[in-house]
């Protein structure tokens, strides 16, 4: 049941954020909000990357597949600029590496 509560919280907060500008700043948002809006998204994503790889430093068998797959994601995204393609390729490569190689 707790999982439903968490989903509700995520949905409620997301909806509140999406409606907030239409309710709060009909004309102009405060400077600090605009500043956070510019800087926070990139930071949040960088933090999530660290969060995702948090368990990958225990051994070489955890570390190497993560590094190789991450490199594949970065290179393929540089070349093709296609989010779905890079996510698909990187995940497939990672699954292959952890299941068959390491």
């Amino acid at each position, binding site marked *: 049941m707790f*999982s439903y*509560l*968490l*989903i509700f*919280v*995520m*949905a409620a*907060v*997301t*909806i509140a*954020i*999406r*409606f*907030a*500008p*239409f309710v709060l*700043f*009909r004309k102009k*948002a405060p400077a*600090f*909000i*605009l*500043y*956070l*809006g*510019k*800087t*926070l*998204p*990139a*930071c*949040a*994503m*960088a*933090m*999530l*990357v*660290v*969060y*995702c790889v948090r368990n990958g430093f225990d051994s070489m068998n955890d570390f190497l*597949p*993560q590094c190789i*797959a*991450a490199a594949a*994601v*970065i290179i393929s*995204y540089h070349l093709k*600029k296609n*989010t*779905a393609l890079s*996510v*698909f390729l*990187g*995940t497939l490569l*990672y*699954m*292959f*590496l*952890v*299941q068959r190689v390491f």
Partner: protein
Amino acid sequence: MKRSGKEAFRDSLIILPAYLVLGIGFGVLMNAKGYGFVHSLLMSVFIYAGSMQYAGVDLLCSSASVFTTALMTVMVNIRHLFYGVGVLDKYKKITKHRIYDIFALTDETFSIVCSKDLSGLDLNDYCFHLSFFNHLWWISGTLLGSILGDILPFDYTGIDFSMTALFIVIVISQWKNSSDHLPVILTFLISAVCLFLFGAGDFLLSSMAGIVIMLSVLRKTGGEKDV
């Protein structure tokens, strides 16, 4: 469907591959973590925010607290505040389905709405159909992924990496669109230090606090001059 609706449908096809693949990835990931299509669909219908849903998988699995979950949602989705600001004028003129259009304003829908020349189109029809079809692709992907996990006897070990990959891609694209990389570099440092000091359990709260403090300090010291 009228002309504006058809145009919206055509534009939504640009988003279709990404939403289908990421939606399928989300469904498969949820399935691999033991959450069936009810959880996945609830999330895709009512949260409808890709990166938050991927981050949400981990929150669900680790039974994060309500507070951590709410704070994480704010961090990941705060950018939507500015999407709203960006289409304020356009969306003010919408008279039909406005509530739904605002609810369904994702990164991708926003990018189309704000770059599209809407003159000559029925604003109500265009925005509603664009929002609706994008939402539909996302939900279809999720459902497909959710079912796929059940009917395809396949070893899904490592599927978690789809989350990592998505966030890496977003970091690169944001990096390229920004001239000031200091906040992101400092975020990597702060997060790494928090992970080392507090471990995975207290990682999220401590690094989120660290990031907001870091940003306020940067702003005070004039790290960002153009705002």
